């Protein structure tokens, strides 16, 4: 009865966080086809990086994804260290793990804010932002900045932990544990939230794997793949934590996996800061790496992020390719959207934690 209508949930739309366009074909209210269009925030990062020295790229790597800038910063430094053939001192490794997990919680709280606004409850938004402030203060005390930290260096970290930092972190984590329970009360124990998320945007494990999904979205579909366990880097090998998975693969499962991941991250932070050995935190690195190429992959809050670096012996990288998890997760979004209603689009895309900075590079 109703013929099909293309709707541009366009580059500038209340529901998409960041500049990207979702063209949706509607038949009445249900979606029959979807096509994400990206490229509005393409800054030419990989070309820009080819005429800068290795240490100068570190603060630029922060700007790849402003939601979780420390994980990109760390990925670049880890790749460069492997290229130089340098190993960061042990204390730096433990500090990096603690900082990365704090960044993971901050990134998940930013994602929670996006879910809150998309589903219409502004209390979730403001409460998750208030909780995020706790961790921004911690990271600001550690590195000096609130969002783009520029904290990792090739060969270690910028500076050692400020004095009685561990006490502040433990106090914040206890406080955050209580507040996380309030947040969950707003969501898990709320029938309209379950109505909006149960059974929406379903994707089973096999198709998710084939479509290249990684991260919390894949784990929500029942695939227990976490690079921190599968391909451990830094000091993750001797951290005791378990990978949170869910089996339904719908929007609620993805939400549930991220909330559990926040609790796991809290455990890791406590372990990392407790077991950090004494010693130097930074190693002096030569200017020019040997010729060759190296690949390094890391568990970003959104999925598997990978960097492939080629050096030709000069002090500038010859080629630096960034694989962003959101780039592939977004390419796998049409199968999630087809068959659901247009008012499900914010729920499905909101839970995917879009970060357009890293998608377009």
């Amino acid at each position, binding site marked *: 009865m109703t013929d099909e209508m293309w709707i541009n949930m366009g580059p500038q739309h209340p529901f998409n966080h960041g500049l990207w366009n979702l063209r949706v074909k509607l038949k009445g209210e249900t979606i029959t086809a979807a096509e994400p269009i990206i490229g509005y925030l393409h800054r030419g990062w990989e070309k820009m990086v080819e005429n800068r020295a290795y240490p100068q790229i*570190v*603060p630029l790597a922060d700007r790849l994804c402003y939601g979780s800038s420390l994980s990109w910063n760390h990925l670049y430094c880890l790749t460069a260290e492997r290229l130089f053939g340098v190993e960061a001192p042990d204390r730096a490794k433990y500090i990096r793990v603690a900082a990365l997990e704090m960044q993971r919680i901050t990134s998940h709280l930013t994602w929670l804010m996006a879910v809150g606004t998309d589903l219409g409850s502004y209390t979730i938004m403001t409460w998750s932002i208030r909780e995020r402030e706790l961790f921004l203060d911690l990271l600001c005390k550690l590195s000096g900045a609130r969002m783009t930290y520029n904290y990792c260096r090739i060969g270690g970290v910028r500076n050692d932990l400020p004095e009685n930092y561990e006490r502040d972190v433990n106090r914040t984590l206890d406080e955050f544990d209580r507040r996380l329970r309030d947040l969950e009360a707003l969501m898990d124990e709320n029938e309209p939230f379950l109505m909006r998320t149960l059974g929406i945007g379903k994707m089973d494990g096999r198709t998710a794997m084939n479509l290249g999904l990684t991260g919390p979205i894949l784990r929500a579909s029942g695939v227990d793949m976490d690079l921190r366990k599968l391909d451990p880097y830094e000091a993750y090998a001797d951290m005791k934590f378990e990978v949170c998975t869910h089996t339904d693969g719908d929007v609620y499962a993805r939400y549930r996996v991220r909330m559990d991941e926040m609790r796991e991250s809290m455990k890791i932070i406590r372990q990392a800061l407790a077991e950090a050995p004494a010693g130097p935190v930074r190693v002096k690195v030569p200017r020019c790496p040997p010729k060759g190429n190296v690949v390094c992959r890391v568990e970003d809050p959104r999925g598997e992020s990978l960097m492939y670096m080629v050096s030709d012996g000069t002090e500038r990288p010859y080629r630096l390719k960034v694989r962003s998890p959101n780039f592939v997760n977004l390419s796998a979004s049409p199968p999630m959207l087809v068959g659901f209603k247009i008012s499900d689009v914010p729920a499905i895309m909101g839970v995917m934690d879009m970060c357009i900075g890293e998608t377009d590079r």
Partner: protein
Amino acid sequence: MRIEERTYTKADHLRPTGYVLKSLIVTFKGLVRATKNRPCTVLYPWERLVYPDNYRGRPGIVLERCIGCARCARDCPNRCIEMVEVELPAGGKAKRPQVNVGRCMMCGNCAETCPVNAMIVTPEFELCSYSRADLIFDPVKLQYPHKPGYEVNYEFALLSEMKKGGEVRTYAKNDPNVHDNVVLDAPKCISCSRCAKTCPAGAIEMAETGELNPKTKKPIKRPKFDTTKCVVCEQCIEVCPKSALSIKEVL
């Protein structure tokens, strides 16, 4: 790879009780808490958040300490630092860094590489102005009252010591005798003494070596490097016409 039968067990309190009752209770507690003591939002222009000492706002400078070595200009990722002529209080003109704060991304790299801690990181971030030209801070405007918290110091270990294992010493950022050194390739040098003139730290001075110049019968002079004063700014390397100088890294 194995397939495991696993049912996801939620914490027991995470079941919706009374449709939205639990959310109502939690939000009401939030309301009571926010009216009893002040809400957590900060009314920005009147109240301000307290930032730690190492908060990175715009870069600042302590002009007395600056020796004009231009290491900050070389290491800035966004290339917003330029060296410009400026009147020194002690008389005479010298090149000091001018920062285009409009382009600066406040990464703090300039304060980190500055060997004499002249460039510092100030907590000032309110930088709006009416025109782009106002955002180009010349050295005088860049100045900021100095506090020890604003300097960016770090300790580093040496790769060779790390590889040897055993006790590893850490060296301060501007440790005079642990840094890359400039090496002279003697035959190429035509002793024009340009490097001695440009060295901002005064670490190069032309010393006579024994031989005589066969044609002019005058003693040949070669630059001699005082490694304790050298700040590795590589200006001598750039200015040398015969590119006789090169860097030997200490690892």
